């Protein structure tokens, strides 16, 4: 069997707040293979945000091992982590987090700029992905001139432009109404059908229902881990 994309072993994250140490993650074991569609659920304070930050290489664990595509991430430098984020991971945030004063084109090109991709190639790839998402006619618009659904789709385009191994979405429908949220989820479903590995972090069962595997966190540990039939 091929090497898993993500392998977490006995992963701990401890925040030292001075007087008391807070254990956000207390020995998480998790394996995610390429092409999976996983929802990570859990109540507030269960550690799902911390887990997402570590999965996304924004943060490093206090203890334990995180193999991303076979490479140990736990002890890497900031610069190397930035490279991994750029190459392996596409983020989609609840609040879209598009740069408000940059056009969609510039927003989508930004990860390629940081990846050192040439100007012409950046333009070509950003245009291609905007075309795929259906926003190519809005390339010159600023995020503020778009609807919430369009903004989130633009954010998805930006996360996909580097062709990342992992799409990591944090409450992607949290700021959207039912209909537009459904559109965005349909986009994730389609991407996953084409082989894209997707991890959703959410507390919304309707969103989690799109995934084929649901991992529940309680008090920093994996409580349940269920596979289910594709919807």
């Amino acid at each position: 069997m091929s090497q898993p994309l993500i392998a977490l072993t006995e992963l701990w994250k401890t925040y030292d707040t001075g007087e008391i140490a807070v254990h956000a993650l207390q020995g998480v074991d998790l394996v995610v293979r390429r092409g999976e569609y996983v929802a990570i659920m859990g109540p507030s304070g269960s550690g799902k945000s911390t887990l997402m930050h570590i999965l996304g290489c924004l943060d490093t664990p206090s203890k334990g091992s995180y193999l991303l595509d076979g490479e140990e991430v736990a002890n890497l430098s900031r610069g190397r982590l930035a490279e991994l984020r750029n190459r392996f991971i596409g983020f989609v945030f609840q609040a879209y987090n598009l740069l408000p004063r940059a056009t969609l084109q510039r927003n989508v090109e930004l990860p390629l700029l940081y990846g050192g991709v040439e100007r012409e190639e950046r333009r070509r790839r950003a245009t291609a992905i905007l075309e795929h998402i259906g926003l190519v006619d809005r390339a010159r618009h600023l995020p503020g001139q778009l609807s919430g659904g369009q903004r989130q789709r633009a954010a998805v385009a930006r996360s996909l432009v580097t062709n990342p191994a992992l799409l990591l979405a944090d409450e992607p429908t949290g700021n959207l109404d039912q209909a537009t949220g459904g559109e965005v989820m349909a986009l994730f479903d389609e991407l996953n059908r084409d082989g894209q590995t997707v991890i959703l972090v959410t507390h919304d069962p309707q969103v989690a229902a799109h995934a084929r595997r649901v991992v529940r966190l309680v008090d920093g540990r994996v409580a349940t881990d269920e596979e289910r039939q594709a919807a």
Partner: protein
Amino acid sequence: MNLMEVVVDGFADVRAHAGRTVLQTLGVVLGVASVVATMGMTAGGKQQSLKYYAESGGILKVFAWPRPVEKVRASAREQASRGMTLDDVEAIRASIPGFDLVEPEVGRSLLVRSPRLSRSYRVTGVSPTYADLHELIVERGRFITPEDISNHTAVCVLGADRAQEFFGSENPVGKGLRIGDHYFRVAGVLLYREFYWNRSENYNALGWMNELVVLPATTMLARQVGAGERKVDQIGLRLASLEELKDAVPALKRLLATRHGAEDFQVFSRQERMQEMEKQGQVYDITFEVCGLISLIVGGIVVANIMMASFTERMREVGVRKALGAKGWHIGVQFLMEVAIVSGLGGAVGLVLGIGLVHAIASMLGQPAALTPSMVLGALACSTFVGAFFGPYPAWKAARLDPVVALRYE
């Protein structure tokens, strides 16, 4: 690597935040402008002094006057003082080579009469080189010549105002004028001269040149004063060069003191006066420069304030950029670009505004404005200082920012 690309991106970012950039730039502009303005005003004042000295004979001029003696406190020697004499003049010429011109001046108040006007004025006996000492300019005719001196010629030279008074619009050269009890022919008329320290004070510092009535020194002594008289009113001298100042002026004082046996004279040197003024000026300079510096610091604080305010506002953006794979230096360059543009632009605009301010204030006070290379350098130094002082810290902080903390920022 792709530094150029990141710089271009940083530039686009600055353009996108035009409002913030304008505010910051304004801070630098005001600081730099006030520094330039204070420098310009002080430089203008100095140039004014230099210009006056240049127009009226240069900084090489030295004067020696008899000093009025206080009768009560004076010593016997001082009371016996005969003032300055032609013998003093000859002694100076003979023993102090540091002066290339030694000009005695003998004046009397005499009745001057033309067909138009009859009035008493001070008439001065001088030698031909008197014009060189004071940089007098002859407009019509000629000045006193060596022949006038040796022949005791009965000629006079008039300042522009006097010529106007006695002859109106007629050309006075060759015309007759009665001075005291004798008849004189007008040999020349001097060019009208003016110099105003500032327009609000209506005082022409070169006005005395327009009011001159001069005769050959020998004629003056023989016809107006009395042939036996050797006493002169003042001695004007010119240093052969500035290097002579150190030796020639003390030598002059020693010579006069020895010859007179008392301190019954005063010596005034323009160069020494300049140095004194320079010293006094330094006090004002420092005051002005401190004022300018305070405005610069205020400007810098404006920049730092907006920088820090926008820093918190931009924390989330920094987090997003980092999530997308930006490394520390990407973010740092972006922040530094902003400071570089702000301080560069602010320096340039501040310089222009400061020069404008100098001209505006100068024309209000009626003083000349000065633009010196040191002002441009000063403006450059100021804006670079603001950039170098207030730029790297926020840039470094942003570069080091933990992406998780930055993303969580609301």
